């Protein structure tokens, strides 16, 4: 048995250990003091189901379901305030990314918008090597509101008028090389 920073017992194979193993530098999570600096610094803290500090207490208690179903990781905007300020140098933003990956892998999220947005984006990048805004927005809307009329509203209209929306993807030349790299990376990750 290992002890986490906040006195919770923890053993291999637990949710807590899994999060640590899946985050570069995740070991630092054991040192969390529950000081609350992260939550107090978080711009979306008020709208999160649980603040980052609260999430880390739940992690230590292995409350997997509640953590992965919460909106907290999805409301993280990657501002790195928490990471910068954490007295224990816990890579909090990276842990939020780990929780997003685990929630997707296990299908444990309540509101599908955020994970789907990320996946739409990645699908495009894997295909072309580049991203483009309108493709992203349109594809996302086609997947999510296939029967509704696509309304991007004044935002897209304003952008189109200023010629700031790319309507066609730009692609890298060596897409096969990129594919080979990503396929290998996925294979290695799967084998972990």
């Amino acid at each position: 048995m290992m002890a986490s920073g906040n006195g919770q017992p923890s053993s291999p194979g637990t949710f807590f250990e899994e999060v640590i193993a899946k985050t570069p530098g995740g070991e630092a999570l054991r040192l969390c003091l529950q000081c609350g600096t992260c939550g107090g610094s978080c711009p979306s803290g008020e709208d999160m189901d649980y603040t980052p500090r609260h999430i880390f207490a739940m992690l230590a208690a292995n409350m997997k379901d509640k953590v992965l179903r919460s909106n907290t990781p999805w409301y993280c905007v990657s501002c790195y305030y928490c990471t910068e300020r954490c007295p224990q140098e816990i890579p909090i933003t990276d842990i939020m990314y780990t929780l997003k990956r685990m929630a997707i892998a296990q299908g444990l999220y309540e509101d599908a918008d955020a994970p789907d947005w990320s996946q739409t984006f990645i699908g495009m990048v894997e295909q072309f090597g580049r991203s483009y805004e309108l493709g992203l927005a349109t594809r996302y809307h086609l997947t999510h509101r296939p029967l509704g009329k696509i309304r991007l509203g004044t935002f897209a209209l304003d952008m189109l008028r200023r010629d700031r929306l790319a309507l066609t993807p730009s692609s890298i030349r060596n897409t096969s090389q990129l594919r080979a790299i990503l396929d290998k990376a996925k294979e290695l990750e799967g084998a972990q």
Partner: protein
Amino acid sequence: MRYAYYPGCSLERSAASYHTSAMKVADRLGLVFQEVDDWNCCGATEYFAINLLPAYALVARNLALVPGDLAQMAVPCSACYVNLKKTDKYMGKYPQLAQRVGQSLAAGQLGYRPGGVQVRHLLDIIVNDVGCDAITKGVVKPLTGLRVAPYYGCLIVRPENGFDNPEYPTSMDRLLRALGAKVVDYPLKAQCCGGHMTQISEKVAYELIRRLLHNAAEYDADVIACVCPMCQLNLDAYQGNVNRHFGTDYRIPILYFTQLMALALGLSAADAGLGSEIVSAQPALAKIAVEVPQEEDKKARKRADKRALPMPTMPDEEA
């Protein structure tokens, strides 16, 4: 001074004015930027949420494509900057990660040794390599009387980058002062613009944007200067939505710092990439006698490419 240059996807279109002005300014300052050949998307803030190793491999391909004679990479987008810098740093710090990223790159006949490329934000290069003294000497049209609020946002300064303070950065303040502007010092200058939150929860995103606009307005800013396409997009293109949502009436133009530099260095409004901002910069720039090109609304390009997706219907266009 020669650098590899990584533009990132936004600078191809939605932030074309950043690219144009950065190139013109670099040229004027004697900086040589060589675009990384066949660079790919950095994954923005999304890829790390899906697959970890492929996310690092995606970023690392760009580092691997930098020619051996270029030791430094200039990056104008803060999100790309943080991904590139972090990937290099983590590969150095975590050997197992480096090894597996290396194996992935090898599948594409590429390789990258951590530390091989020093990743730097464009602002860092301009302020620290060129320097404010040299820039002052090049100023022919000082921004006298213009109140500029430097907006740093997150990723240029956090996680700590080594060139500025992560909580209270001042590089851009010094630069803008060197251009003759009146720099507005306001508390929220390194707060978050909301990132991709506009796509996830409008309510949360609009409040983050409103706070920033409000704070800059409280300090009487004529214009907000930014260093990242995501920040520019959120503050500029969503300013109207924010006004509608809160019943406010902010009209603060959001320009890239390179656009203000271009003007001060005597380049034309077109070279400064002016005219594509959604919130008009004309009233503010009239203070320094700059005329913003009045573009005819560019017609949406017709779908010429069969890879293009069906066009959404624009409610206003039906009329």
